[in-house]
């Protein structure tokens, strides 16, 4: 896979710490990853990016619509050349912060056969969604996403088949946790 490395210059270190709804510090994983995607977009930069989205492009139009109420988006995605680089404590360091009453675990899935897992958490304030956390792992991948603000999860999932990310047809090995 093509190596992708995004270093966010804007937003600053302060935004990295305070814009996110939970802390994630994966310097150890970043040092060992073969591919890293590191996106930290806070409100003003996100809205600036939205202004450059082309409304006549169907995918960009959808993203533009979804961004409207979002205050920030933070993504850490690591790919490794071998299994076992990320560990359960890495995952637990994030999961331990996503607890009630602020967070609610919406759904989780784990495949023992493939060693994959994914969980979605919602942040709720006065019964209103104010954020989403997605934790997804594969033996050689580790992904954490925090979207700050309300977002249509179905619309977001529909984008999954675009941008070169193929829609997946799962094996039979999966089970709902």
């Amino acid at each position: 896979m093509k190596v992708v490395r995004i270093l966010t210059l804007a937003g600053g270190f302060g935004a990295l710490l305070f814009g996110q709804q939970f802390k994630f510090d994966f310097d150890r994983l970043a040092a060992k990853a073969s591919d890293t995607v590191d996106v930290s977009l806070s409100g003003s930069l996100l809205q600036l990016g939205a202004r450059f989205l082309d409304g006549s492009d169907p995918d960009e139009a959808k993203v533009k619509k979804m961004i409207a109420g979002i205050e920030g988006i933070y993504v850490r995605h690591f790919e490794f050349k071998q299994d076992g680089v990320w560990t359960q404590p890495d995952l637990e360091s994030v999961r331990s912060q996503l607890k009630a009453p602020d967070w609610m675990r919406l759904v989780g899935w784990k495949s023992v056969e493939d060693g994959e897992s994914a969980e979605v958490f919602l942040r709720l304030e006065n019964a209103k969604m104010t954020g989403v956390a997605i934790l997804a792992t594969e033996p050689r991948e580790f992904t954490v996403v925090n979207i700050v603000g309300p977002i249509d999860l179905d619309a977001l999932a529909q984008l999954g088949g675009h941008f070169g990310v193929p829609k997946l047809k799962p094996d039979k090995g999966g089970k709902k946790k």
Partner: protein
Amino acid sequence: MDWLEQELRSALARKEPPPGFADEVAGELAGGARTVVAWPSRVTGRWLAAAAAIILIIGGGVGYRRHRGIEAKRQVMQAFAIAGGKLNHLQEHLKEVSQ
């Protein structure tokens, strides 16, 4: 496109010369006409230099902002691709399990 960019585009847009301009120039050249170009005075020169500096600064600012916007857009699309891909993956697995 914001107002500043529009202003700059309008100010720097290509404009066609008035009709007969080329003939007039050619005529003057053929007739050996000499044009005396007056150098701007010191004060006018300062104003011109200041105006040029302001245009450069504004142009640079617009360019930098545009660069940042395009980079932000690229990151937005990448972030949504990853988030959407993971969510789609999860949704497909859950559909499979529920069937």
